[in-house]
């Protein structure tokens, strides 16, 4: 199995992309793989563009940053933020994003233009993850829907993802763990239909 995977996580400061990063890290360590994961602290966390580079490999990983054109996928919680990192995507890499915009700038682009740009890439999963999470009764689990949607493209076992989710949310109680697992599985199910 190909284990070397470069993932860019994108969003707006405060949207919580680091939860996805933490689960990827934990799952990768659980599989005895090497991980490097960079994140943004400081000024941009105040409603600015933020990203995290997650690198997983069975070999030593040198750079903390993914080189341009080398990301296997970009997972974004916001459609414009997804496109911001396009120069990092490798040929035939995957775009996975929530369709809901986070409009905190006055000249936010037309949604259709953004969607068309996303759809012009062969490999994309554009879903209303927020609605899916809300319908499951936990709008905070949007991230888990997206992670689920991306999971089959990442060379980590489903079991290790589920274990990582359980570990990460353990402090918040069984109900929250269950809700997040549910969101993850729903994302996985929906992506299976799109990817196949």
């Amino acid at each position, binding site marked *: 199995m190909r284990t070397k995977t470069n993932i860019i996580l994108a969003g707006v400061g405060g949207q919580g992309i680091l939860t996805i990063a933490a689960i990827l890290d934990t799952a990768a360590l659980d599989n005895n793989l090497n991980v490097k994961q960079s994140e*943004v602290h*400081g000024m941009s966390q105040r409603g600015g563009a933020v990203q995290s580079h997650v690198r997983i490999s069975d070999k030593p990983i040198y750079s903390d940053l993914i080189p341009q054109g080398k990301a296997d996928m970009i997972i974004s919680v916001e459609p414009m933020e997804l496109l911001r990192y396009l120069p990092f995507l490798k*040929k035939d890499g995957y775009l996975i994003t929530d369709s809901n915009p986070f409009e905190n700038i006055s000249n936010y682009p037309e949604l259709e233009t953004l969607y068309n*740009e996303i759809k012009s890439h062969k490999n994309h999963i554009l879903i209303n993850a927020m609605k899916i999470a809300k319908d499951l009764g936990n709008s905070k689990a949007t991230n888990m829907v997206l992670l689920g949607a991306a999971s089959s493209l990442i060379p980590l076992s489903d079991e290790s993802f589920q274990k990582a989710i359980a570990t990460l949310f353990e402090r918040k109680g069984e109900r929250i763990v269950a809700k997040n697992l549910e969101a993850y599985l729903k994302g996985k199910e929906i992506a299976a239909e799109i990817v196949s």
Partner: protein
Amino acid sequence: MKKLLLGNEALAQGAIDAGISGVYAYPGTPSTEITEYIQKSKIAQESNIHSSWSVNEKTAMEAALGMSYAGKKSMVVMKHVGLNVAADVFMNMSVSGINGGLVVVVADDPSMHSSQNEQDSRYYGKFAMIPILEPSNQQECYEITKYAFELSEELGLPVLIRMVTRLSHSRAGVITGEKVAQNNIHLPKLSTQFQLIPMHARGRYQNLVDLQPDMLKISENSDFNTFHQGTNKTIGIIASGIAYNYLMENFEDGECPYPILKISQYPLPKNPIKQLFDTCEKILVLEDGYPFIEEAISDFLGENRKIIGRLSGDIPRVGELNPDNIANALGFDIVLNGDLPKVVLGRPPQLCVGCGHNDLFDAINVLKKETENQQVFGDIGCSALGVLSPYKSINTLIEMGASITMAKGASDAGIHPAIAVIGDSTFTHSGMTGLLDAIIENTPITVIISDNSAIAMTGAQDSAASGRLISICKGLGLDEDHLKVITPLHKNLQENIDIIREEINHKGVSVIIAQRPCVQLPKEKKDKLKEYKNVSIN
């Protein structure tokens, strides 16, 4: 077992395991998580390691020196510009030397992700003539920190560890080792060591100069400086700190055909550089930050282009390194699958919804329309976002504390109204002394302390100002009639405008405290603030 740690956290764990008795710091991106890690560490709490925040970097470094004087190991942590604030003690404690091991950690911010410049702290280390360590990865952050304390005690000098944002804020698995015991109290053997009156200082300075050859020898034999022979001598590469990772990323499985000298300890090791210089046709220098090494080993007139890097233009002169600009310098092609689509717009940071600064700026902007000459001098922190639209309320932003003193100077020059806007924590960090200047001369300025009761930008740490602002202003001698407290809420807009206008019209110093807690404060902290509510002006 491997623990997944940020570079900052690995460094902090290294300090705990090196047996520190205290860490002293003021929060600043990208350095904040080092101290926070120690504050949260169970072992640190059990072993009574001091870790509360200091009022600024200078007080922090002096306290660390005091702990070292007493014989215990201490660490002081700051962002790069914080070292400017602490430069006085920094330069002088290299002359006095230390007693218990003392390590100064400075996190630089190449590309200015959260800073106003990208100054390179290695110049400070060289200026102070002390050893500098520059880890390249998270494991090295841990090991170098433990080693730094040994080195500090061996030489009797402070040691500087230089971090950069990308290493500070990136995680990887780290293997930790044994914990070294803390020191017991033991005073300096030489009673004159810390008495820097000229007659003693001359001797101490001579001692520092005499230690330089030893420092060079240690760095030439350091395990952190490694030499990779390589087979292709058309180019030899010097890569310092994190630059080494970006370099190796460009070679499949780390198989680099060129000789590489990785530098993580200074003074610059002469021998291997000479070896590279003699055997290779060209030398490429890769370093994050300023061209510190390149400048040191290049010829002054630049006629000998044997050495290339940022100065020669092969690497961009400004901004941080990454695997791509190094690939370019090596002549490798970068295959891009797509450009940045035009539809993507910038998304600059902005104030949180419900932030009190917002309503303060609304009031200031209304007043701006009333007078032609109003100038607003801003300061570091979340309130600095008032520079950007939609507020555009602030005319200047330079460094910690400059709002009050720049307003004073502008007022002395004849500007009116001259308004200073400063956060509560920035005020206690560096604003109080400037306010005293203005009070002494009763300069007609209006100082607005935007009191969100937190060091907000770096993550809502406790502010030294909480509950103390009124007594500080009164203690500095401010006329109580011109000390006002307002609540920056939309419903109070008109009232607040009236109060600020009245104080602008006062022919002397006024202070207006605009009080509204940061929305990012956790509930326990907000509750604690209620205790301070009883502090009234009268």
